[in-house]
């Protein structure tokens, strides 16, 4: 392993569920995932001197006080919504390689089913996104109130400009569900779905059907990041963070007036991440893509550069993004079929794949994987990971 590199040395997850809910506070939920991650890494909480909580879901001080992190010296939150965990990975990597911290803990988790529902997050707390005031003053009064509606208008433009079809969006939902059948932790494990089921599912915000939308679940996940040097002393197989990058769409606080509607934060971040890693999208064995809605998967596949813009519809069809396909995507089932853990479970799954511990859903010979995050009005983040 190269000197000066950072790696993920611990992952932890709680159970994911809908009814009847986790039965614990969001903080406790995340603390349990943290405890798991630290146990996985084989370090005691006292070693943790950096914590990067998810925006609006707890403060580093609370985590440190509960866990017993006596030496906290790096506390930071990246305000990019669902792009935050992957963006934090980049910051945590910088922190451990630059000596700002030795071990950085990244928790995320919530009672997304039994507490405030995903669908309500923006209307319940406008400050939760950078464009909150825009939404309040110029979107919500016109019934344009929630993310599936905001993104549906982008999906419609893509369909209009490139002929993307409902069946192609459906192929994404079906692939995620197929993967979830191989993941006992997935909420949708045991509930298979066909493209016909998809096409029959009720419209939510045309062109989005119910089955285009992520789950709302309770659950938490956490990862531990440290330097390659420290990782050598631990009894785990480290997963290297080859590079990370993040970016914002323009303008980031308003969706509708973007000159290029499909250019998101990832459009800026992805080329940077690949360049830093010295790799190209062709080198990637699998991708964990933040799948809040089906079209956002397609859009990110295009913007990362797995295919050209406008070709995403074909790319996601024909099993190409399923296990055994060209680019297996979200082998755990993703937000669509595993659970909505704010993108953190995309990182834990990528780690499992690169450790070779993904069981029945293991991507054969997985060496290099990509994880993306998507947040707010299209903030983007990406990390290139390797075994």
């Amino acid at each position, binding site marked *: 392993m190269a000197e000066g590199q950072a790696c993920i040395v611990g992952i932890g997850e709680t159970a994911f569920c809908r009814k009847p809910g986790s039965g614990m506070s969001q903080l406790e939920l995340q603390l349990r995932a943290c405890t798991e991650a630290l146990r996985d890494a084989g370090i005691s909480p006292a070693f943790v001197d950096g914590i990067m909580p998810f925006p609006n879901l707890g403060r580093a001080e609370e985590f440190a006080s509960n866990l017993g992190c006596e030496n906290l010296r790096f506390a930071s939150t990246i305000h990019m919504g669902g792009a935050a965990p992957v963006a934090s990975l980049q910051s945590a990597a910088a922190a451990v390689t630059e000596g700002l911290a030795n071990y950085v803990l990244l928790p995320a988790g919530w009672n997304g089913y039994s507490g405030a529902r995903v*669908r*309500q997050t923006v*209307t319940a707390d406008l400050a939760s996104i950078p464009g909150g*005031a*825009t939404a*309040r*003053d*110029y*979107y*919500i*009064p*016109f*019934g*344009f*109130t*929630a993310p*599936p*509606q905001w993104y*549906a*208008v*982008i999906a*419609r*433009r893509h369909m*209009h400009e490139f002929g993307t079809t409902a069946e192609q969006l459906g192929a994404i939902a079906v692939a995620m569900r197929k993967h979830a059948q191989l993941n006992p932790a997935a909420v949708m494990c045991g509930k298979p779905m066909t493209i016909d089921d998809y096409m029959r599912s*009720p*419209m*939510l*915000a*045309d*062109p*989005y059907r*119910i089955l285009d939308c992520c789950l709302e679940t309770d659950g938490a996940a956490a990862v531990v990041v440290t330097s390659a040097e420290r990782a050598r002393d631990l009894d785990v197989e480290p997963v290297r963070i080859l590079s990370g990058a993040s970016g914002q769409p323009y*303008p980031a606080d*308003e969706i*509708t*007036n973007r000159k290029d509607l499909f250019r998101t934060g990832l459009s800026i971040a992805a080329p940077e991440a690949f360049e830093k890693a010295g790799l190209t999208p062709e080198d990637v064995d699998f991708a964990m893509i933040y799948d809040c809605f089906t079209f956002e998967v397609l859009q990110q596949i295009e913007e990362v550069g797995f295919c050209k813009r406008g070709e995403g519809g074909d790319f996601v069809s024909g099993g190409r993004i399923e296990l055994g396909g060209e680019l297996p995507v979200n082998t755990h089932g993703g937000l669509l079929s595993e659970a909505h853990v704010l993108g953190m479970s995309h990182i834990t799954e990528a780690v499992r794949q690169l450790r070779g511990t993904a069981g029945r859903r293991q991507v054969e010979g997985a060496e290099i994987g990509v994880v993306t995050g998507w947040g707010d009005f299209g903030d983007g983040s990406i990390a290139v990971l390797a075994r």
Partner: protein
Amino acid sequence: MAEFHKADVEKLIDGVLPWPAVQDMMKSAKDLDRFDKYVEILQERVPWDERILLPLTPQLFIVAGDGARVVKCRCGHEFGDYRVNWKLSALIYVRDDEESLSEVYKGREMPDPTWVQVREYICPGCGAQLEVEAVPRGCPPDFDFLPDLDTFYREWLGRPLRDSVPYEDLTPALVATWAQPDYAKPVPELEGFTKDFYDFCRKGELRFQRCSECGTWRHIPREMCAECGSFEWEWEPSTGRGTVFSWTVVERPLHPDFSGDTPYAAVIVEMDEGVRLVSEVPDCDPDDLRIGMPVEVFFDAVSHKITLPKFRPRAAVGRTGGPVDRAGGPRTPMRARRTLELPDTIRYEVSDRVAVVTVDRPDALNSLTKDMLTALDAVFADFNADDDIWVAVLTAAGERAFCTGMDLKEAIPLLTSGDELGYEDHTKRQFSDVFKPIIGAVNGHCIAGGMEMLVGTDIRIAAEHATFGLGEVRWGLVPAGGSHIRVPRQIPWAVAMELLLTGDPIDAQRAYEIGLVNRVVPSEDLMPTALDMAARICRNGPLAVRTSKQIAVRALGLEQGFVLEKALAAKVFASEDAKEGPEAFKEKRPPEFRGR
């Protein structure tokens, strides 16, 4: 003239001036500066600096605040404009049962709570009891004292106050806003640029920011131009036209306030200027939406404060758009007033400060049902309350009739059974509270209740074929909607009596000769003439116009007459003749009256 020292006045205020001195003071002429001394003392005693204009009670004062005259408590708490009954903003403790009344009244002194309630008005700032009133249950808070401050300062003190305000009880206007149904959906927060944007919408203008340096349009509003870095910009008017850029059809609401609307479409409109905004195209079936579809803005006044810009398909504008000004091309499109729930038979559209109210039931000769009457009242209350509308034109659909009165099928049973058709307040009649000008545009027969409505208007334009009459007596009834009071004051006595007693109609030319209408014009010129008249009034100061009408109307003092009319007419409606008349009308035979 007697002079009293400030110290004496101070003792007077405190109630410690010896009785002989008080008598002396009462007997002699009032010293000229008594008021000033009095106020000076009060001013010294309050803990704030605003100038006291008039004491209301030992605890309350009218003071000159920031650009307004407000009622202020000694403690500093403000109750708002002095022309609104301050009690409406006080805390109120109500004693309306024996237990609570017995705390202040002993034994037989206690009023009967069946009839009386005692209200204590408490200052929310300091908890002081400001006023107590014992009134019949349900009686509105008594507005004890509304001083005519400007007149007092001008004529009694000889030094007019700056920034005079109309002497007007604004309490009813406040209460009227309470009666308005609340708009239950989320609204923008009117601050900064957002307030500017939506304030323009209130005025019927869609404007976007445009950089003064490089000319780039932008939306949403921002401090500076991202293209050239300039901080200089203007709110420039948009053409109001654009095309559908994208949309989503919301089938399942994710916000509870929109749950009643599904399916509805949230639409992104790309304007001619290049900016895009989120809006709705409510008149278009979501299935008919297409990318590139031309749309045009209209303004939906969802509440007193908020008007939302919405869109309709552009092709549809010609079909449903407003009237065309023959002289000057298309007028600003009329916007329907959607805050009010109106029956299809009453239309209420506003453009360029003019409301056009149309009775739209031509198949029934524009006769009025009780619902329509209620709707007309609601429309004119809205008109009266909206500062942005200055004149109303009242007309009707079709060419045959302006209005032939109440729908007899519905109204006669109601009237003869004592229903007051919503006019429970006998001092009021149609439009008697409306002090903004109403122009009647009479497009045909104006008979019975139609005539009663017309004499509640101010300026009247008639089509050449219009007729006018009060035929009620022919059917053993009387026109109790105010005609007995209004008509003899508007035209000569003898002509008025001819109309009231014979029940015979007159033609438009005669109506013009007797001064019942201002103009007689060919049918096709009716609305242009009425709208032109409205536009001419709109050139004038709205406050002056409104006050002018108010003085003229209130000086007539019609209320007593209205009460008398109601009382005497009730006897007629209860008579046998009042049953015989309408029956004969229905059976198309001459009635047989018996005089009882």
